[in-house]
């Protein structure tokens, strides 16, 4: 994926599509807020300003900002974006997802060790057969320090039961 924008004369006249997408997202957010609080509109009580009033103001402002963003998109006011490499990001995201999936099943150390290994891979240390076990050992030490010594409650799995 490349978000690189070379500003040539031809491109100057075209809108910044990514910025238009942002504007659309803002409008969607405004819509969600507006409709979600609509069931609360009659709860003003004595203050007249009820649980729906401020959300309505915020939704209104979001729409305003969306319109402003559209103008900026056509004027191409957004700064130049640097080239983004998607591969490393995917590694890190995969690590975070793996941690989420594994933490209940296998406990803190294994799940977080896998995160450690995959994240390191995202930054160029691709030998995960070394980094994941290393991560698990580090995390087990962390678990011992924080959960066993300092009584922080961290999810335990098979490895943690060994050191308790």
């Amino acid at each position: 994926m490349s978000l690189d924008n070379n500003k040539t004369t031809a491109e100057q006249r075209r809108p910044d599509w990514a910025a238009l997408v942002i504007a659309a997202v803002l409008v969607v957010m405004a819509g969600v807020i507006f409709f979600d609080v609509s069931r609360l509109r009659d709860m003003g009580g004595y203050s007249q300003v009820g649980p729906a009033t401020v959300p309505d103001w915020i939704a209104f402002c979001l729409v305003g900002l969306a319109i402003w963003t559209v103008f900026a998109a056509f004027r191409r006011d957004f700064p130049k974006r640097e080239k983004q490499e998607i591969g490393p990001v995917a590694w890190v995201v995969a690590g975070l997802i793996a941690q989420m999936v594994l933490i209940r099943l296998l406990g803190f150390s294994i799940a977080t060790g896998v995160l450690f290994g995959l994240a390191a891979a995202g930054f160029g240390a691709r030998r995960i057969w070394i980094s994941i076990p290393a991560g698990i050992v580090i995390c087990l030490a962390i678990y011992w320090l924080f959960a066993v010594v300092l009584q922080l409650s961290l999810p335990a799995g098979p490895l943690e039961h060994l050191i308790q």
Partner: protein
Amino acid sequence: MSTFEFLLQGLASAMLPMNLIYALIGVTLGTMVGVLPGIGPATTVALLLPVTYQLDATGSLIMFAGIYYGGMYGGSTTSILLNTPGESSSIVTALEGNKMARAGRGGPALATAAIGSFVAGLIATLALAFVAPYIVKLALVFGPREYFALMVLAFITVSSAFGNSALRGLTSLFIGLSLSLVGIDQLTGQNRLSFGVPDLLDGIEVTTMAVAMFAIGETLFIAAQGEQAPDKVEAIRGSVWMTASDWARSWKAWLRGTVIGFPIGAMPAGGAEIGTFLSYATEKRLTKHPEEFGNGAIEGVAGPEAANNASAAGTLVPLLTLGLPTSATAAIMLAGFQQYGLQPGPLLFATNPQLVWGLIASLLIANLMLLVLNLPLVGLWVKLLTIPKPWLYAGILVFATLGTIGANPSVFELGMLLVFGLVAYVMRVFDYPIAPVIVGLILGPLAEQQLRRALAISQGDVTTLVQSPIAAVLLALAAIALILPLILRFRGRGNVLSQMAASED
């Protein structure tokens, strides 16, 4: 006995070698838990409180004070070095502090934070000892309408201090405000934007959000630079210690931060983070080096850190004089006091002077101990940055998630880290500032609640908002802060002013 004698007596007992060791243990333990992002001083103290139960009253009080200060400073360390603010009041520290660390000036940043915390803690603790009864009277005058006016002022001053583009700054702010709506509405108990998900009923935790936006977002952003980004951060450029110019730029910021932080901390609904925001905005306006703000200005670390610590001492004012726990940390301290047979309240200074002054002396000693422990370690801490990138960032992620899991072991919370980390990444790509999101998330609900409380008390009469002199003055100040830069901008712009208004839109 006079106030002063009580204090001296307290200091004398706190200086016993055994008690100094307890202070050292407390500071060390507090720092260890406090460095976890998402675990602020409140949780640190709550978790470690049982450790202090084993000791006698003086010993436990002093260890308790050590844990408290350690927890606070631990958060600043990780904010500066790893860009992972541990709690809402060290978010601002991360803004400039981490930029400094990346430019090889982590040493001076850590030092100014430590010394600033010490100076502010010292002044504020002494202020606590001598002017608490007067400050507390002022604090009680603040009702919902005055707080609302204060929040408006905070919004205006803070928003002018973030970002290069008015459009993107405001968009970030409103994203934060939108997210702040999620959860149970405090005044009516109705849920908003939680879509039937129970985990959203309490709203989005500020610390989770801060960790996601700063630590995770930043990690993803750096990862996306691929090979272009420099392989290693240069940990030390120039001196690891503060230079003469660093000192010259820091000391005024420390004092200003203290003056801003202490009274705001003393207000029952002030909140430490508001002091840090106002301090940051002040420093940005007064600095002679506006070009450095956003790239690592030392005042931007010194001021907010001092404000944070002064505000922490400030929260003790209502706690000790009225028995009002006005922050999570204060509530836990209250629990701690009860353990030592102290019943905070209006009579405390009269009925239990030894213990109160013992506590104040303990705070002073713990504060000093923190400095003693941390200054020599600065050199070691900054070495953390020389860890090769894969291990450094993998380690940051481990710590970021560890804090979140420790505070609330839920898969949902980890999911939020990932989602908002990705949001922050996209925002960074499009050059949206991150800090206003957090500001909106913190200030939004406060402003809304106070406004609605004020109007409920007046039964819907809007003029109530300007009928109190304090509220009127604060709102007038906010109006000036909003309009003045615009006027000055139209009348020929100086360097400082164009930077201040900083908008091409």
